């Protein structure tokens, strides 16, 4: 087990909790809107951005955010204006971003910088700084406020975008907001979880919560809880095994998802008797 100073341990644990919260909260919308691949795209955009930052000696967090937002800004309008499926646009942007990331990595000077680039790729417990924590904390509060204030609109859009629009909800605004906040969440979690795996923290906890609940509100509550638990167990696993933290978190969240699939009450067939008795599952 790695020996680390208490202050650093505290920073890292708080970082893991906050990253788990923001990613898996956004995951609820990303999974429901069938934009799972947006996770790959955003994380690779952030990764390319971080590599770009290292290349030009700028804070990689800032450059990662710029790239993620760039993708968020392009993705929505491009898929709407070009009348392309979101997933087609995501696939296109994903490939461009990964290509750019490798180009930038190639130009990073010095071995130390290459190590920093790899930490962005795999994630590292030690790379979470005070600024990252403050940004993550701020984003967490903004997300809670955003969801509480616009819950009815978000629920309407998540159920059916066209119906929500027909009821007078500005669906475009909420679609772009989801892209925007996902970009934020990915960029800020990048240093901890790593560019290659951060999307798993968006998808897995939500997919796990989906196995148990029919109530959107409960999924909104339990997805972040599962995300935080995954991050904390992954963090502990990383400490005792010296695995990269991103990989540990993803292994834990994937294991929870696999277990959820097996025991999911939603997947069990109702028998006639239960139906007759009006038995309800987790409602």
């Amino acid at each position, binding site marked *: 087990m790695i020996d680390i100073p208490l202050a650093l341990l505290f920073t890292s644990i708080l970082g893991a909790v906050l990253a788990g919260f923001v990613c898996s909260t956004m995951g609820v919308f990303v999974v429901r809107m069938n934009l799972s691949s947006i996770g790959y795209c955003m994380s690779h955009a952030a990764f390319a951005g971080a590599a770009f930052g290292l290349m030009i000696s700028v804070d990689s967090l800032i450059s990662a955010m710029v790239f993620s937002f760039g993708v968020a800004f392009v993705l929505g309008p491009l898929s709407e204006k070009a*009348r392309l499926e979101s997933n087609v646009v995501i696939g296109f942007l994903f490939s461009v971003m990964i290509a750019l990331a490798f180009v930038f990595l190639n130009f990073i000077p010095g071995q130390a910088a290459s190590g920093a680039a790899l930490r962005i790729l795999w994630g590292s417990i030690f790379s979470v700084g005070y600024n990252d924590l403050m940004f993550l904390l701020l984003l967490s509060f903004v997300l809670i406020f955003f969801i509480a204030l616009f819950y009815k609109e978000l629920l309407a859009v998540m*159920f059916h975008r066209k119906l929500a629009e027909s*009821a*007078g909800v500005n669906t475009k605004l909420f679609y772009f907001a989801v892209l925007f906040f996902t970009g934020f969440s990915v960029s800020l979690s990048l240093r901890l979880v790593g560019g290659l795996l951060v999307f798993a923290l968006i998808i897995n906890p939500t997919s796990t919560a989906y196995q148990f609940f*029919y109530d959107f509100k409960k999924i909104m509550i339990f997805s972040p809880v599962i995300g935080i638990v995954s991050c904390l167990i992954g963090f502990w696993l990383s400490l005792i095994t010296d695995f990269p933290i991103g990989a540990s978190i993803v292994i834990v969240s994937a294991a929870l998802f696999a277990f959820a699939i097996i025991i999911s009450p939603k997947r069990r067939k109702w028998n006639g008797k239960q139906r007759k008795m009006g038995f*309800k599952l987790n*409602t």
Partner: protein
Amino acid sequence: MNVIDLQNVETIYEGESIPVIYNINLTVKAGEFLAIIGPNGAGKTTLLETINGILPYTAGRGFVLEKEIPIYKTAIRKEIGYVIQNFEIDPLAPFLSKDIVMSGRAGKIGMFRFVSKEDWEIVWYSMGLVGMIDFAHRPIGRLSGGEFQKILLARALAQKPKLLLLDEPFSNLDFSTRRQIEKLLNRIHEKQQMTIVIVSHDLSFIPSRCSRVIVLDQGKIIMDGEKEKILTSTMIDNIFHKKGVNQ
């Protein structure tokens, strides 16, 4: 007051050149119950979506509740209850029926405002009206086709709309459920004197309180008049038999 007033309206889908509907002149007065019939592909759904501003018209002028559609489309939509053509719902979808009915009020309540007790009372009333109050906590994926259709109707009614647009509300439903929905629409019209526009390709399911029928074929209105006269005309027979549509 005219609830709908379309003047030479034409709608072309983005990136296409052929209009889906054209030369549409339609006036619907408050309290009317109107059916738009026509074979598949006649442009019925396009006409409904042009009325509620989801599809922008490319020529002519259109007013709903005396407001010009492109300018006031968001405000107009808050006054229109829209029941979309039957769509597949994931059986594991994480939504309860009551929340779906409430989602109909999202636009009407407005941004930066929370759902109030009064909003919930309207939701319960709408669910009661369609006989679905006992299903309030049922996940929507667990509802039958007819039950789901009633929830969508309750959702539209929860908006307390001045105009109700129903796109093929009887499709994919069995005979007895169709009759139930038909009775329900008659009751809503009788009780609330709401303006209702229903789209159907099935001539055998036009609610009895519906007094006016419009026939749409290949994007234009070819007949407009009293239900009895239209349904017994030989032209209808030709159109519907030619297209092989249920009658």
